[in-house]
């Protein structure tokens, strides 16, 4: 039950899509929590002791006990606070399996395609990243059609597990369009996702946790410059 006796603390980083997922889940559940912003160049003792295996954010600490990995955190929140806000995972076993499948797909495929766009050392690698990104987005359009069954969200009438999983990536989707001209959720090619993007952006919970768009673009720009500099250094050494 939310409230009395529940201490929730989230270790995150403002630009991390994985931390954003945790924030979204907490917000959709109407749960209050302490937030700790981590500096990746100077990780806190709390982060290192709470997630010694990966040393990454997000980490949710509930009454002193750490939970790591964004998908694990979201499921934990859903299970421990079942009566708070929306229920993220559906009740039907097959629907749950489908939701878990798509969340795993997003983690495995979307993020790795983007990494090729950001960190690709050659133009060929970056072009391959873009190609893979569009293939993934097309697949997600089909996923949305399958899961939503004509309703607004992957979860149906209300947001669900996959909406949170993909929702964390929305600021990057927008930043990538700005920086790379990569229109991923385009009304012409992926109408359902384009509509979903708008709808998600209008949710109160989303607006509450969404990082500043300008800051995100600056951040991604800086990351891209650093990646390019690293690539140039590698090329110079070769």
């Amino acid at each position: 039950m939310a409230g009395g006796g529940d201490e929730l603390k989230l270790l995150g980083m403002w630009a991390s899509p994985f931390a954003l997922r945790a924030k979204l889940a907490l917000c959709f559940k109407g749960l209050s929590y302490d937030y700790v912003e981590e500096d990746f160049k100077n990780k806190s003792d709390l982060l290192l002791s709470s997630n010694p295996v990966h040393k990454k954010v997000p980490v949710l600490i509930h009454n002193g006990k750490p939970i790591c990995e964004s998908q694990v955190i979201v499921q934990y929140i859903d299970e421990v606070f079942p009566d708070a806000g929306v229920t993220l995972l559906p009740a039907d076993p097959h629907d749950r399996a489908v939701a878990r499948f798509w969340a795993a797909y997003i983690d495995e495929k979307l993020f790795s395609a983007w990494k090729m766009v950001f960190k690709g050392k050659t133009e060929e690698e970056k072009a391959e990243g873009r190609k893979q990104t569009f293939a993934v987005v097309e697949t997600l359009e089909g996923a949305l059609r399958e899961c939503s069954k004509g309703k607004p969200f992957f979860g149906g009438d209300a947001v669900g597990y996959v909406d949170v999983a993909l929702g964390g990536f929305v600021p990057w989707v927008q930043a990538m369009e700005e920086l790379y001209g990569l229109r991923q959720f385009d009304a012409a090619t992926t109408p359902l996702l384009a509509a979903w993007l708008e709808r998600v952006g209008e949710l109160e919970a989303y607006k509450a946790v969404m990082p500043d768009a300008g800051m995100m673009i600056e951040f991604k720009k800086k990351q891209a410059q650093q990646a390019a500099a690293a690539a140039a250094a590698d090329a110079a050494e070769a």
Partner: protein
Amino acid sequence: MAAAKKEKELLLLDFWVSPFGQRCRIAMAEKGLEFEYREEDLGNKSDLLLRSNPVHRKIPVLLHAGRPVCESLVILQYLDDAFPDTPHLLPPANSSSGDADAAYARATARFWADYVDKKLYDCGSRLWRLKGEPQAAARREMVEILRTLEAELGYREFFGGGGGRLGFVDVALVPFTAWFYSYERCGGFSVEEVAPRLAAWARRCGRIDSVAKHLPSPEKVYDFVGVLKKKYGVE
């Protein structure tokens, strides 16, 4: 009668040496669930596989009354959800809402199964595929992975947590024990030496019926790695 029986049918599309497929076989055996095993020719995938897993086109795929479930860890959780009266792999939700302790145990199990997925298979592949320094790096990484898992196991007999002896993490990890011998031969190290308690856990699991029945011998796996090496021109 035949139609009703068909409704409950479990069909597993799989490939004999796949540790991901073995997870599903062991899970169903632990749960006392009968299933049909169908071997896929990965060089010539069946229409059923391609239709059932159009996104990844990979095994394992579990078909339950004709509906596909893909991704081994998703399948394991599905089996818990769909067959709640069988021994659980993950600690089950308490009847009272929001049991934080059970939820925490589930979160821990999911974390470690995810760790196995993220680390073990990939590192193992690098051990047999690479040579020289990259292979040495893979070996160092593998030793660290095994030690990390051993530390999590602690002094317990099993990772446990479910209704039977084997829990979610045991089932997620145990198929890779059939690859330990191959890792050792390719990497030039000994699991017994670097992680003796994990090696003992592997032997303990190997004595359990469901595991003994569904895991290939380490020698067979090593032969298979030999075939792969030839195929990829590694030597």
